[in-house]
């Protein structure tokens, strides 16, 4: 009887956690890692975004090599007729991240890094989250992961 009293609140907490989690239902992760290729003008912010996510375990985001399969391709576009700064595309074969130079070229370094980190979060399977997190749906200057970013990552991986 005592066990039931313990299990029920635990199950409730678990369900509440799942209900607040934000996942895509797919990702670019292949065998515990994401191998990326392509190039971007914003390489320092791209690499900073990778370092941010690599600070968490267990998924590694690494450059593609001759001996690995490319899971993710990054590229720049210049579109003035859209309202997005970056986008993640769940493609056939390697997935894609596109960064929009129309907005990013004059952004601060922190804004650029927010976008690269955000799109890499999608590649890790995370969906949009609340304000105060990198996975918030609109661009901000936040570069460090928020509490929901970390809990979503830890729950998923």
């Amino acid at each position, binding site marked *: 009887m005592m066990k039931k009293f313990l299990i029920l609140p635990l199950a409730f907490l678990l369900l509440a956690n799942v209900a607040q989690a934000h996942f895509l239902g797919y990702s670019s992760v292949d065998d515990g890692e994401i191998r990326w290729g392509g190039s971007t003008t914003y390489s320092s912010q791209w690499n900073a975004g990778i370092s941010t996510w690599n600070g968490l375990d267990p998924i590694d985001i690494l450059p593609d090599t001759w001996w690995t399969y490319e899971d993710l391709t990054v590229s720049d576009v210049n579109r003035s*007729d859209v309202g997005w700064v970056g986008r993640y595309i769940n493609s056939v074969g390697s997935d894609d991240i596109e960064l929009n130079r129309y907005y990013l070229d004059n952004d601060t370094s922190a804004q650029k890094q927010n976008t690269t980190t955000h799109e890499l979060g999608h590649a890790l399977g995370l969906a949009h989250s609340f304000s105060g997190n990198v996975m918030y*749906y609109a661009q901000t200057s936040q570069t460090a992961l928020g509490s929901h970013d970390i809990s979503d990552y830890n729950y998923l991986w």
Partner: protein
Amino acid sequence: MIKKLTIIKILVGGVVLVAVLGIGLYTNTIKLPIEKEIHTQYVADFSDDRILMGASHNVFVGKVIRETGTKDTGIVPETQFEVEVVLNIKGDLQGTATINQIGGYKDGILYTVHGGDVLAPNTEKGDTLLRPGVTYLFTSRYNKDEGWHTISSHPNGRKVISEDRELDGAQLKDLAMSDEKVRRLQGAYKNEILLEDDIRMNNTRNSYQSLQNTK
């Protein structure tokens, strides 16, 4: 001999089948039950009407007449529609206009945009392709090179005004003018917040302030 003929028939049949399938997928006449998602990060918080209005070049109500084409922009297809303008909220489109929706079919696979505010309703469903005969509220940005208006996929940037194909232009205009969201955006126009990048690039088409200065 019979066996040889049978084998040849099977081989020819197989080649024809593969060719038909390939052409069908390439031309998108065959639509596979596969959907690929595009997740966008927006430049600003478009759930704020003033920002949505400022970031849009045109805001209008229009009835979708027909799909006119698909353009492959590299990774993601984009679909064009002919739209009959019913009511202008920002800008002054007349008659029909070509609008461009990000997403559509490529090699038989449907690509749709997802990614609004997690707290907004219907965010999970993603941006479904426009349906001919339906009248929508659109927010768009002009593409000078293509001559079309790319519509926003943000959940706050679109609304179905009427699914009734039989209503005429005057009836649709009455319906639009009494719509609460249309009125809200009309009110937000004079308080619109322009995007800094648009100001810098001189790309604030139909901004409230610029039209007041010309009067």
